[in-house]
C-alpha cells in the first residue's frame, strides 16, 4: 500500500537524453547487464509457437459443433518460441526490484522474505492439481488444510470464528463490513448508516464502507497520532454502524485505548472492525480478541508471507467475534466428531446450522466462486508451522526492534513526528520537515533507488506532511539495516542541503523518472500495431 500522488512531470533534457554526445552511449542502448526488451508485439509473430501440441488429437473433417460461431477474424496474439519466451521474461524480470535483491521497506506492506518451502508445498500435486468441485470425499486433505489454518488463525487472534474465502485484504474488509451489516439487519437496526474511519486509514477502508452502502465519516486523531477517544465517544450514537480502526495504526503506533474504544462502540450498539494489515507487529504477543474487536482481516501475503507476486494474488481471511461469526460467508469447513471435514455450501447451510449450531448460523452469502485462495492457504500454513509459537512471537519482536532501530538511528536527519511519544511498532514514520526548498519526499525516494533500494511508502498516511513510512520487517539482518540506514541518511542529507543533482534521480535505474501526467492525459493502455506502410502507387 503506497501512494504516488505527485503527478510528477519531467522536463526533457535539452540534448534529448543520453544519445549522441554521451561518451557512455552504446550502439544497442543496453548497458552491460542492464538490458532493454521489446514488447512481444514487436518481436513475436502469429505463426510462431512455443508449445508443441499433439496434432493427432485433431479430427479434421468431422465438422464442428460451435453453433455457427466459429472464429473467422484473427485475434492478434503474437507467439514466441520457448527460448525467446524464457529470454523475454527473464530480461524483463531484471528490471524489477524485489525482496530477493534487497531490503524492501514499503511501509504497511510487510515485504518480508518469502520462504521457498512454502512454494514447494503449494506445488504438491495433491494441492495444486485438484478441482474445487471434486466430491468432498476426494479432497479431505485440502479441506484439512483450510480447517487447520482456520484453527491457528483463531488461536493466534483469540477470536471466535474465521471466514476463509476472501481473496485479498480489501475483499476481507468487505467481508467484515458485510457481516456487520447483516448483524445489524438481524437486530432490526439496519438504519445505522454511518461508518467512522480515521483519516490515517488505508484508502480501502472508506472505499469498502462506501461499496457496501455506508456513509463514511472521519475520526479525529490526537497529537500523538492516535484516535482521539473522547472525540470518538462524542460522535457515537444510534446512526453509527461501526468504526474501522487499523491497529497498530498506519503511523506505526499501537492504539493504547483500543479496548476502551471497543467498549464505547459496543455500548453505543456498534461494531469494531480492525484493519489487520499490520498484524505482523503483534502476532504471538497480542490477541486482537482481547481488545474487543469484532472483525479483522489478516493479509496472508503480509504477516504469513505468501508472496506479493508483483501485486497479488493476496488472501484475506477475516477473524470474527462471537457476535459476528454466525453471519460469515459461504462456503466454510467444519470437522465433525467422526473426523470428516464438511464443506458447507448454500444447500446444506441451514441443515448444518440446525444440526450443529442450534440453528444460529445465518450467512450473508457467497463472496467468490469456489472456496478461497487455496494456494495461499498451503503457503501460510507451512509458514505458521515452520515458525511455531516461539518463532511467531520472535517475528513480532524482531519486526518491532528493527523498526525502532531505524527510527532512532535516523532521528538526527529525518523528522519523526511521533517519536517523542515513545517507541513505534513495526514501522517508522518520518515527515519531509527540514528539506531544502523545492525538495520533497519524492526526491528522497528516487535517490534511494539509485542507492539500490526500493523506496519506503511515500505520502501515506495522509496525516503527516510528505510522509515516509519505513517497514524493514524481521527478516533483515543488523548489517542490512545499517547499510540501509547509511543510504537513507545520505539521501536525506542531500535533500536537506538542496543538492540539485538529487532532483534528477534516479540516474542508475532502467528508466529515469517517468511522465505520469502524460500517461494519464493521453492514456495508451494497449499496444496498437503500426499502420501498414501504404504501397507505392503503381
Amino acid at each position: 500500500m503506497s501512494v504516488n500522488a505527485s503527478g510528477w512531470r519531467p522536463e526533457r533534457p535539452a540534448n534529448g537524453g543520453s544519445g549522441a554526445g554521451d561518451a557512455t552511449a552504446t550502439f544497442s542502448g543496453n548497458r552491460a547487464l542492464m538490458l532493454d526488451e521489446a514488447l512481444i508485439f514487436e518481436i513475436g509473430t502469429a505463426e510462431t509457437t512455443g508449445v508443441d501440441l499433439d496434432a493427432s488429437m485433431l479430427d479434421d473433417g468431422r465438422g464442428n459443433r460451435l453453433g455457427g460461431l466459429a472464429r473467422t477474424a484473427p485475434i492478434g496474439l503474437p507467439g514466441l518460441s520457448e527460448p525467446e519466451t524464457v529470454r523475454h521474461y527473464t530480461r524483463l524480470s531484471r528490471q524489477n526490484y524485489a525482496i530477493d535483491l534487497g531490503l524492501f521497506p514499503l511501509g504497511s506492506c510487510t515485504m518480508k522474505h518469502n520462504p521457498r518451502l512454502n512454494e514447494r508445498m503449494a506445488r504438491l500435486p495433491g494441492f495444486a492439481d485438484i478441482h474445487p468441485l471434486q466430491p468432498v470425499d476426494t479432497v479431505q486433505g485440502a479441506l484439512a488444510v483450510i480447517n487447520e489454518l482456520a484453527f491457528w488463525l483463531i488461536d493466534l487472534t483469540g477470536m471466535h470464528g474465521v471466514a476463509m474465502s476472501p481473496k485479498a485484504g480489501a475483499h476481507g474488509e468487505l467481508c467484515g463490513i458485510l457481516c456487520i451489516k447483516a448483524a445489524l439487519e438481524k437486530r432490526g437496526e439496519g438504519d445505522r448508516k454511518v461508518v467512522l474511519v480515521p483519516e490515517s486509514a488505508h484508502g480501502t477502508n472508506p472505499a469498502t464502507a462506501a461499496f457496501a452502502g455506508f456513509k463514511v465519516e472521519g475520526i479525529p486523531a490526537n497529537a500523538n497520532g492516535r484516535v482521539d477517544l473522547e472525540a470518538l465517544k462524542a460522535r457515537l450514537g444510534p446512526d453509527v454502524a461501526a468504526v474501522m480502526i487499523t491497529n497498530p495504526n498506519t503511523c506505526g503506533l499501537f492504539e493504547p485505548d483500543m479496548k476502551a474504544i471497543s467498549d464505547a462502540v459496543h455500548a453505543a450498539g456498534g461494531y469494531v472492525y480492525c484493519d489487520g494489515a499490520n498484524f505482523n507487529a503483534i502476532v504471538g504477543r497480542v490477541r486482537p480478541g482481547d481488545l474487543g474487536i469484532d472483525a479483522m482481516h489478516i493479509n496472508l501475503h503480509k504477516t504469513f508471507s505468501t508472496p506479493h507476486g508483483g501485486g497479488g494474488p493476496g488472501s484475506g481471511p477475516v477473524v470474527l467475534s462471537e457476535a459476528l461469526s454466525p453471519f460469515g460467508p459461504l462456503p466454510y469447513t467444519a470437522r465433525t466428531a467422526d473426523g470428516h471435514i464438511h464443506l458447507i455450501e448454500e444447500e446444506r447451510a441451514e441443515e448444518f446450522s440446525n444440526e450443529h449450531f442450534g440453528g444460529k448460523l445465518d450467512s450473508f452469502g457467497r463472496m467468490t466462486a469456489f472456496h478461497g485462495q487455496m494456494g495461499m492457504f498451503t503457503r501460510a500454513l507451512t509458514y505458521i508451522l515452520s515458525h511455531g509459537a516461539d518463532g511467531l512471537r520472535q517475528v513480532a519482536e524482531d519486526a518491532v526492534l528493527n523498526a525502532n532501530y531505524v527510527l532512532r538511528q535516523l532521528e538526527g536527519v529525518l523528522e519523526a513526528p511521533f517519536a517523542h511519544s515513545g517507541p513505534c511498532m513495526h514501522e517508522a514514520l518520518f515527515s519531509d520537515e527540514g528539506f531544502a526548498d523545492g525538495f520533497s519526499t519524492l526526491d528522497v525516494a528516487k535517490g534511494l533507488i539509485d542507492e539500490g533500494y526500493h523506496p519506503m511508502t511515500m505520502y501515506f498516511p495522509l496525516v503527516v506532511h510528505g510522509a515516509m513510512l519505513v517497514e524493514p520487517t524481521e527478516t533483515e539482518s543488523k548489517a542490512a539495516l545499517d547499510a540501509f540506514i547509511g543510504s537513507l541518511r545520505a539521501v536525506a542529507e542531500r535533500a536537506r542541503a538542496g543538492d540539485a543533482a538529487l532532483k534528477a534521480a534516479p540516474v542508475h535505474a532502467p528508466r529515469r523518472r517517468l511522465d505520469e501526467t502524460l500517461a494519464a492525459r493521453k492514456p495508451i493502455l494497449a499496444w496498437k500495431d503500426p499502420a501498414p506502410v501504404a504501397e507505392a502507387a503503381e
Partner: protein
Amino acid sequence: MRYLPLTTDDRRQMLHAVGAESIDDLFVDVPEAARLSGPIEGLPMHASEMAVERHMSALARRNLVAGEVPFFLGAGAYRHHVPASVDHLIQRGEYLTAYTPYQPEIAQGTLQMLFEFQTQVARLFGCDVANASMYDGSTACWEAISMAGRVTRRKRAVLSSGLHPHYVSVARTMAKFTGDTLDTAAPELNAMTDGERLLAAINGETSCVVVQYPDILGRIADLSAVAARAHEHGALLIAVVTEPVALGAIKSPGEMGADIVVGEGQSLGVGLQFGGPYVGLFACKDKYVRQMPGRLCGETVDAEGKRGFVLTLSTREQHIRREKATSNICTNSGLCALAFSIHVTLLGEAGLRTLASINHDGAVRAAERLGKVPGVRVVNDSFFNEFVVELPVEARPVVRTLADRGILAGVSLGRLYPGEESLANGLLVAVTETTTADDIDALAEALEEVLA
C-alpha cells in the same frame, strides 16, 4: 529460527541503541492486560523444513489428484497442460517477491508484462482495453455489474440463466447490500439458451444484461441480438467467459457487441489449485475506461524520452479517491496474470487456435461416445469443450460412485443447482487436451456399468 537473521548479540546491541532495557519496553503501548506473557498456547514450537514437509505431504496425499485419473470436471475451472517454462519463470524472485509497481523506475518488468497482458486480454475478448486483472471471474463479474450501474445510473441487471451459479450467488450477495435488483432464473436442461427471456426482460430501467459465453451448460449462442436490444434501451451487454481457450475457436464477445467482457483466466497458465488463486479478466470499450475498477498500466516516456510504463488513471482508485473510488480493490492477481500472459505468449495465435481445436474435437468425440451409452442423452447442440449429458438417474450419486472407482466423471448439476429437480440428472462433462481417448472410453464404460 532459519528465517530470522538477528543474533542474540544483535538484539542486545540494538535494544541498547534504541534505549530499551528489554523488548517489552517496545510494547509499552500495549495495555498490560492484553500482553501475552509467553508463546501462544496450542501451537507447537518451530519446526524443521523436513518436519513441516512431512506434515503437509501427508495432507496432500489425502486428495485424489486430477492428473492421476480420468478427469472430466469443468464448470469454471479447467485442467489444461501448463508448459514447464511458465512455472519456472513465475518463480523468479524478481516477479515472485516484488510488489505492486508503485516505483515505476524499478518495476518496468512487471509494468511491461502488465501492458502486454492487458493487450492480450483485450484482443482475446475483442475489446479496446483491459485492466491489470481482478481476483477471479466471479468477483470481476460483480464489478462489471457495478460498473454498468455507474455508467447507466440504473440499478436493474438482467442475468442469463446460463451464468455460473457461483457468479450469480456472488452478485446476489452484493446486490442485497447495494440495493441493486437482479433478474435471475435457473437454466433449463435443453439445447436452447435463454436468449428469448433476455430479450423480453430488457427495458428502459435495465443497467446491463449479463450473458456467459459459452454458458454454464457449455452452449454457445450469438450475442448480437441481445447486444442490439440492450443498446436500444441504453443498457450495456456484459459477456462472461469462464473458459478463455474457447476464444481460440469462436468469435469474441466484443465482435458481437459486448460493452464489457469479464472472465476467469485460470485456464491459461494457472492450474486448478482447488479454486484459487485464479485471475479475473476485465475488458471494455474505450469510452468506459474511466469507470473501470482495478489497476491499469499505461505507456509513457521517461525524462530521457525512452518508452516506459506506469500505473495510470489512478484517480479512479481507492488510495486516491477513498470512499468515491470505482471499487475497493487494491491488490490484483499479478502473479497469475503473469502466468496467463506467459502461457498466451508461448501459444501465440497459431498455438491457441490449435489448442482450441484439439479441445473441441476431443469434446465432440466424447459427446459421440457418451451419447451411445444406453439411457444417456447429450443435451447440447452446440458446445466448445464442455457439454451436458442427461442420465436416466440422478447424476450426483453416480459421480460419487465413479469417484470410488477412480474416475472423476464431471460436475453434477445437482452440485451446482441443489434442489432444482429438473436438473438433477444432468452431468457436466469437460474435455481438454489433457483428456485421452482411453479416458473417454473409461468414463463411457464405467457409466454403462453403473447405469446398467
